[in-house]
Each structure stands twice: as structure tokens, then as C-alpha cells.
């Protein structure tokens, strides 16, 4: 496998192999010196056309754990400001001799486009509303770690599904692994068509919460709200937010997850994020291990998932 662009590139077997490999990197993180020499001499560049704290830092840490060199490209301080095209930017970066491009862009499909231009491996770190495969992988890893697996598990994904690349990748990954997924959102925050999505839909969070093993809250994406889809954020919180009262409806073992950054007091009550069954910081920690596994698989293992 050369690129990681979509969860659907992996399939069930590929996802499981990656999660197994992640176990090894979780162990590496616990060592006195949490660094292995596997990718010495490899050059990984992050090309982020959108803001990000955790994903960019997570990839950078993951690459450094493998002893790869990292370069950072942030649009605000680059020649993109002078009007350089995406293709010229990518070709310039590639000319410096790089092995992997980690790309985030506001437009769906950009990672595929870049993969067609370069010899380097391309990892999709989020493209528009489309996909965010490494987020889905770290979510899967966290659920497997906490609940032991996906068979017969019920997962509710709550909130702004329409604008969420996390939701798209998560639905693909969770269902590939055998979980059943319910989307919970007001009709205006669902995609115009859910044809072909292997999911149930509900508009009543209070009815769904007592039945699920995982409640996955999506961030209310204020920056992507191009039209008035909600009367107000307060009304959203009242009908769909995981308030303290609603959290009591959850089963004792049910996990609370969120991709971050959280809007405390909107989709998640401030104190819910600190509940014992909230695994939000665990997700972040696992993110580094999962991304190390992805980088090792693409750049170091020489192994092919699909032969």
C-alpha cells in the first residue's frame, strides 16, 4: 500500500492489521526512550491548508517516534499567499526529496489529486467534508481497547454529520468492523442523501442514548455553517447536546468520544468531558500510535495489505 486516502482503501482486514500494528507503537510509547530507528532518513512533510492543532502535532510526533525527519508547511507563511498553485507547491516540496506528504485541505479530493502528481506516499489528514481516515482508525483503536471489539456493538454518531469528514470515515470504519451505527442529528445537519450509508437515523437522542455502547459527539462546525441550518446553538444544545442530565441515560459501560476540539457547552457539557467513561484524551494519545503505524506501514514495512 502506498497511500492512505480513504478508509475504504483498507477494508476490514486492512483496518484490523493496522490496529494490531498500533499495539506495538502503544508499547513503544511506554518505553523509557519512546523512539525507534525504523524510518531514519525518511522525510515526512505536513502540508496543511486548514488549521489544525492535534492532527498536525500528532503526525509530527508519530514521525519523530520513528526517527523520520519532519517538515512543516503552513499556508499562512508560505508562497501560497503569493498565489502559488497547489500543483506548483507540491512539486516544489517534492523536489526537496520527500517520502511522504500528509495533507489537509478544505476541498474534497485534493489528496487523490496530489497522489497522482507525486512519487511520495500521500496520507489524507482531512479533505473538506469528505474523509479523515486516521481519525477513524484512532477511534476504532480506542473502542477496541475499551470494549474489546466491534461485534454487536451499537454506536451513535451525534451532531453535524453533514459537514463532518470524521463522521464519513467513522461510519465506513465502524460498519466495516461489524458495529451498527445510528446517526442522530436534526434533518438540516444530515447529508441531503444517505443512500448507500449502512446506518440508521434518529432525531431523538433521548431514545438512542440508553441503547448504545458508544456515543460519538461531533464538533459543531461553526466555520462551515454557510446557511442558517439551526435556529440557535442553544436550541441545538437543548435538543441534541450531551448535557449532564442526558449523560445519566447512558449505560454504565458506554464510552463518550469526541474528535476535538470540543465546544464545551454546545455539543458536550463542560463536565461530561471529564466523566470516567469519557475517553477523549485517550483518543489523542492513541492518535500518535495509530499514525506511527500508518507511517511505518506506508514507508517502512515493505508490506502490502492487499496482495
Amino acid at each position, binding site marked *: 500500500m502506498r497511500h492512505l486516502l480513504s478508509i475504504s482503501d483498507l477494508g476490514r482486514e486492512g483496518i484490523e492489521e493496522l490496529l494490531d*500494528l498500533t499495539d506495538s507503537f502503544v508499547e513503544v510509547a511506554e518505553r523509557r526512550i519512546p523512539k525507534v530507528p525504523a524510518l531514519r532518513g525518511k522525510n515526512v512533510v505536513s502540508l496543511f491548508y486548514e488549521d489544525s492543532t492535534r492532527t498536525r502535532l500528532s503526525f509530527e510526533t508519530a514521525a519523530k517516534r520513528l526517527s523520520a525527519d519532519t517538515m512543516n508547511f503552513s499556508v499562512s507563511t508560505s508562497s501560497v499567499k503569493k498565489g502559488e498553485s497547489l500543483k506548483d507547491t507540491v512539486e516544489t516540496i517534492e523536489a526537496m526529496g520527500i517520502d511522504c506528504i500528509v495533507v489537509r485541505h478544505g476541498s474534497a479530493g485534493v489528496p487523490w489529486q496530489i497522489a497522482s502528481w507525486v512519487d511520495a506516499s500521500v496520507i489524507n489528514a482531512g479533505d473538506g467534508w469528505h474523509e479523515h481516515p486516521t481519525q477513524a482508525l484512532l477511534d476504532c483503536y480506542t473502542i477496541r481497547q475499551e470494549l474489546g471489539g466491534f461485534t454487536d456493538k451499537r454506536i451513535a454518531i451525534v451532531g453535524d454529520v453533514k459537514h463532518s469528514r470524521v463522521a464519513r470515515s467513522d461510519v465506513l470504519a465502524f460498519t466495516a468492523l461489524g458495529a451498527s451505527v445510528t446517526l442522530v442529528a436534526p434533518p438540516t445537519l444530515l447529508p441531503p442523501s444517505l443512500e448507500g450509508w449502512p446506518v440508521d437515523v434518529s432525531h431523538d437522542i433521548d431514545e438512542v442514548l440508553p441503547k448504545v455502547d458508544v456515543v460519538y459527539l461531533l464538533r459543531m462546525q461553526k466555520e462551515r455553517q454557510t446557511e442558517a441550518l439551526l435556529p440557535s446553538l442553544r436550541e441545538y444544545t437543548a435538543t441534541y447536546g450531551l448535557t449532564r442530565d442526558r449523560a445519566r441515560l447512558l449505560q454504565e459501560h458506554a464510552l463518550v468520544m469526541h474528535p476535538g476540539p470540543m465546544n464545551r457547552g454546545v455539543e458536550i457539557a463542560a463536565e461530561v468531558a471529564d466523566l470516567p467513561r469519557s475517553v477523549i484524551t485517550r483518543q489523542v494519545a492513541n492518535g500518535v500510535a495509530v499514525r506511527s503505524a500508518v507511517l*511505518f506501514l506506508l514507508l517502512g514495512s515493505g*508490506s502490502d495489505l492487499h*496482495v
Partner: protein
Amino acid sequence: MAERERRTTPPYGGVFVPRTRIMDAEAVRRAITRIAHEVIERNAGLEDVVVVGLQTGGVPLARQLADELERIEGTEVPVGTLDVAFYRDDIGLRPVMPEAVTNIPVDLGARVVVLVDDVLFTGRTIRAAMDALTDFGRPRAIQLAVMIDRGHRELPIRPDFVGKNLPTRRDEAVDVHEDGVDLGDMVKGARR
């Protein structure tokens, strides 16, 4: 390639086909008993000794060695397992994937590590293992125990404890398993 098949396929490809039985299970057991006595003699007891088996062939031998050490001295010896995939020097030249998660149960600082593997060949795995071990602390010493030393070293590494020295041709293969040790060949396309 299916996962199972990749796992059993060594660096040079193919499937192991045995030709000669070199040691039977009883001979392996006796060798472990002797090595256990040598380990105790060398270290004047078992203080600070940790046994670490290399994935995958060294792991069962490390367990057996530790059991034998405990039987003789009556003290418990920590046992770990080590996978050196991320330390190999042939990453990028052949498929490299960890077989299992490394598990080192104690800090190795100031310990005596007895590293256990089934077959010592080029020495490259041991080189990788020594790099890996030092990421868990600074051992006072690392000693190497192998069931078979088959020669053909490519690095300046020699074992401290040997089950059996076995002269081989470079293209032969040695397999250590629960019924003993076989000398044979890697055959492409053959079925075990």
C-alpha cells in the same frame, strides 16, 4: 499474501523443508539445563538477571530457560519478549512487520540481560536487539544464549551460551521447534 503465510516466510522466501534431525526434544531439554547452570555460574547466582526471548523463536526457549533457572536456584527470574522489527537494518529491502508486541516487565537499568534466540546466523538480529534493549535502560551486561550457532556471522558478535554448534552451508536453513532441531532447506513453492 495471507497474514499467516507472510509470518512463516523468512527473509529469503519459500517454505522450510527438513532434511536431518539435529537434536531431539530431549537433547534440547538437556542443553537448556546445561545453559541454565552456565548462566548461574557466570553470574554467581541470579541477582539482577532478566531473561529476554526474541520473537518468535527465542520466546519459548526463554520461558524454558527461566523455568530451569527457577528450578535450580529457587528464585523467580523476570522473563520478557522482544520484537526487533523497528530496529532491523533491512527495512525497505524486504517486508518487515512486528510479529508481536514487545513486553519487557522490568526496567533494564543495571540488570544483566540474558538474550535468548533459537538460531544465531548473521548476527544482524542480535545487533538490532542490543539497540532495542538499550532503549529500556542501560543494562550492566547483555549475554547471549542460543540453541544453535550455525556460523556465517556478518557482524562481530559471538554467543555466551550455545546449545549446539552446527556447521552449515549458507543456503541451508535451521528450524528449532518443540520436537527438536532440524536442518533443511528453504524451498520456493513447497508446502510444509
